[in-house]
């Protein structure tokens, strides 16, 4: 849809990602999947939900679940501080909040720079679109297949 339009529009195709850091991991989400960013604020814990659902928060009259990517990807646990961001991700009919320690910004990444995710990797690998190498290994960004990720999350939450 949008990527195709972007590729068609440019001679040298690029894709815009909303890049952020949580814990030690850096992720990129296609910018069209991000509605808005605001401060995390107080979350209301929700009973009988998976551990990666940190709770719910109110946003513009809607109650949204807040996902902890680190827990979801089994990479630790996110902590909410005064500077912690929360962005609203949307894909299809699914709308959810995601906790990010820091927002790195919107980056336009050439499609040719996106490397495919390693095959046969861990649980995280199946939700990746690819990886962008940075100047150092720490600068590398994991580009998330946000649609698939949210669908999986929903399936897990409902499965319980």
């Amino acid at each position, binding site marked *: 849809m949008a990527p195709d339009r972007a590729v068609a529009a440019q001679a040298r195709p690029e894709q815009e990602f909303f890049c952020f850091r949580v814990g030690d991991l850096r992720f990129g989400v296609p910018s*069209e999947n991000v509605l808005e960013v605001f401060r995390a604020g107080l979350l209301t814990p929700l009973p009988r939900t998976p551990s990666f659902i940190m709770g719910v928060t109110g946003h513009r009259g809607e109650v949204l679940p807040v996902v902890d990517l680190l827990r979801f990807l089994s990479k630790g646990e996110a902590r909410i501080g005064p500077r912690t961001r929360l962005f609203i991700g949307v894909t299809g009919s699914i709308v959810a909040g995601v906790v990010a320690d820091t927002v790195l910004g919107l980056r336009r990444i050439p499609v040719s720079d996106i490397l495919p995710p390693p095959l046969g990797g861990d649980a995280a690998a199946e939700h990746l679109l690819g990886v962008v190498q940075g100047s150092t290994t720490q600068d590398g960004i994991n580009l998330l297949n946000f649609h698939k990720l949210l669908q999986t999350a929903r399936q897990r939450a409902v499965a319980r």
Partner: protein
Amino acid sequence: MSLDTPNEKPASKARSARKAPANKASAAAPPAPLKAFTDTLLTVLAGNLQARVPKELVGEGGEEMAHLLNQVLDNFASSEHRKHVAAQEIDQALDALISLVREGDLSRWNTTTEDPQLGPLLEGFGKVIETLRTFVREINEAALRLSSSANQVLAASTQHETSSTEQAAAIHETTATMEELKHASAQIAENAGSVARVAEETLGAARAGRGAIGEFIQAMQQIRSDGVAVADSIAKLSKRVERIGTVVEVIDEIADRSDLLALNAALEGSRAGEAGKGFSIVAAEMRRLAENVLDSTKEIKNLITEIREATAAAAGAAEASKSATESGEKLGAVAAQAVEGILAGVQETSDAARVINLATQQQRTATEQVVASMAEIEDVTRQTTQASKQATGAAAELTQLAARLAELIKRFKAD
């Protein structure tokens, strides 16, 4: 003369007697009765004074004549006898006188006489000799006393001479000692003078020290008041820094909100597609500015933290400086007191040294006078020694003379 007088009369009598026979002889040969007279007279003239005219040879008529002549002869004989006795007594007296003169023997005068004519004379001699005896006895006694006195005088004079010599030696020694004393007192005076000088210098130094301590105390007070001002300033600075902190918090908050706003604006721009591209760029720029502000506020916060630590350290240092200056002031006060004590002590030392100097100078003068007096005394003593030597010589001579006098007097035997 008086001795001759008894001779005169018999001589004239003899002459007259001799005349008579001569007259009788010239008258030619006398008759026999006359011959008896003549023979008797011749015998008497020859020396036999006992011869008498025998009455049987004279005749009648001649008896009366013989009796008269015999009476004359008796008288003549007794007169001659008396004359002889007197001559013997005179000889005896002369002998006594000669022995008196020769040997000084006054004891041998024991002459008595029955001659009424010689009696007063001899009695006079006896009185004279008795007087002489008394004199000799007294002189003897006096000579003995003189001798012993002369001996005593000699002894005393010798002793005086000895003691005078000793005195001279003692005076000489005393003079030497006084000379040494003079030198010693001069030394003492010099030392006291240098002590006084040192004390004066010390006094000056201690006064300078007192001034320096006063300045030190003033400086300490100044430092303390400065330290109080510094502490006040630090407190003010601390308050302002806190204020800056709150302001920075506000700025931080605003920057954070700006960051979010810019981010969301960028997302909006992104959703607008190509039309929102420029908007997205501006929003990204705004976001960068907000991030810069956040970095700056972070730096400011760090600085504020550092300043807080530094002001705390400065406040502590100011407090320590305050207590240090307080103890410095106390120490300065103690030092000032000590220096006051030193000043008083040094002042006393200086005064004492000056007094000692003065006293030793007086002592030196007095000692010089004593030395001069001792020299005079020595002179006098030398003269005294000389005189006592002369006196000893004179006493020795006197002793000899007394001995000789006693010797001489011994030649007169009074008893």
